[in-house]
């Protein structure tokens, strides 16, 4: 049985290692009881630095960005072109009141010319204003798909993370560390979160090198009926490798990771155990 002291030590160690994931949600997933106090203590480290003064433009940029980016569950504002200002039309000289041919015609032509030039100048200004508006809207439109795409991607990623962390932060969750078969202190490490109520599980592995070409890592559950395949664990370079599922095989006693040939579809574990559970599962 672990003592409260060693539980605190384990909590601190998990917190320190969780920091390396750079996922602040992972850190907060270790909250609850004393672990939250440890997280608050760690975050206080930020106060060690003297306060800095951001450039005034930073505040403006943020407020501009959030006014352009709507809150996730609100519809985006519809962009509308500004309505043109009411215009005055050039005065039309009725035919009946025109002056006699020569002088009148000259004045009329002159008036029409002036009016035309004024009108042209006005419309040229309007065209310029509209062009500027169109360019602004095009710039926003070019920016918006990128933002929309990023937002969609982030939302999916966060939903997945939230599902995983619901498990990791569940009150009923139990934590089972994994170690190398030789207990190499510098080797890869893993941890399995298991929710006792549902036997949902999440496996997280770090420090494992990607399998070479033609090989893959398999998770195996050690049960009373023998090993059961838990699936392939994809390992990237310098990344946390994770796998999770809604249920665990019945009568699981432990679990381990092996390295298998990728071409033959492993149905039973090979001898090469990469990581093993540090203790038996006791759900």
């Amino acid at each position, binding site marked *: 049985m672990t003592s409260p002291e060693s539980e605190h030590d384990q909590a601190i160690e998990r917190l320190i*290692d969780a920091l390396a994931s750079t996922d602040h949600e992972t850190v907060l997933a270790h909250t609850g009881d004393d672990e939250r106090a440890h997280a608050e203590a760690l975050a206080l480290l930020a106060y060690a630095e003297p306060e800095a003064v951001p450039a005034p433009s930073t505040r403006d940029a943020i407020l501009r960005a959030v006014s352009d980016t709507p*809150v996730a569950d609100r519809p985006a504002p519809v962009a509308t072109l500004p309505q043109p200002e009411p215009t005055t039309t050039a005065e039309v000289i009725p035919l009946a009141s025109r002056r006699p041919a020569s002088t009148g015609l000259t004045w009329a032509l002159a008036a029409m010319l002036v009016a035309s030039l004024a009108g042209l100048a006005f419309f040229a200004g309007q065209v310029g204003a509209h062009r500027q508006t169109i360019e602004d809207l095009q710039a926003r439109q070019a920016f918006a798909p990128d933002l929309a795409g990023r937002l969609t991607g982030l939302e999916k990623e966060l939903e997945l993370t939230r599902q995983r962390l619901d498990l990791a932060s569940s009150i009923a969750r139990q934590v089972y560390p994994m170690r190398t078969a030789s207990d190499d202190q510098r080797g890869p490490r893993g941890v399995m979160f298991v929710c006792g109520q549902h036997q949902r599980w999440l496996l997280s592995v770090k420090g494992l090198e990607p399998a070479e070409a033609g090989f893959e890592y398999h998770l195996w559950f050690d049960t009373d009926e023998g090993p059961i395949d838990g699936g392939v664990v994809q390992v990237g370079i310098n990344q946390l490798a994770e796998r999770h599922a809604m249920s665990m095989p019945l009568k699981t006693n432990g679990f381990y990771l092996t390295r298998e040939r990728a071409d033959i579809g492993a149905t039973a574990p090979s001898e090469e155990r990469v990581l093993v559970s540090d203790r038996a599962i006791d759900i």
Partner: protein
Amino acid sequence: MTAAQAEDRARSSQIDAALIRRVANGDQGALAELYDRFSGLLLALARRVLNSTSDAEEVLQEVFVQVWNQAKRYDGRRSSVSTWLVLITRSRAIDRLRSRQVKDRTLGALQQEKPNEHTSPEGMRSVLWGQRRKRLREALAELPDAQRHVLDLAFYSGMTQSEIADSTGIPLGTVKTRTLLAMKKLRKSLQDEIRELL
């Protein structure tokens, strides 16, 4: 900590929580107010991680846009507002740091002089934070250099304990012991501060 100080801090935490709720409801004014309250702290943290003011300013922008988008997901049971913001900022800064692949430069930066101290203009908030910073510095000063060093590496550079052991040549078991002892001492020294954040 005096009773008056504790009361001020409790009120400050309540204000922070209320601001987050307003941000979640789409109140840009609340976001601006949250920015005014925390930008100095978060910029300093980002700059410490990245050793670059321009990169830190960009991270600060990303953080507050993220806060705007995710305020509804803030859960006051898991952390205080300040811790939530600090951890978001740290995550963003570490991500950028890793993408720049400048871990070695960061280790060098840890040995450089600290940047010149700036002060922010607001009265009460600076007083409260000044007190908190003073308490933290006192707590950190009580740590042996070796313990403080590994804690710095874990927090500011996002290195795992194994990576810290590899880069410093210290055995992994020693790294773990030092971080454990450092965190325990820190928590004990700052128990008043932590209590008001819980």
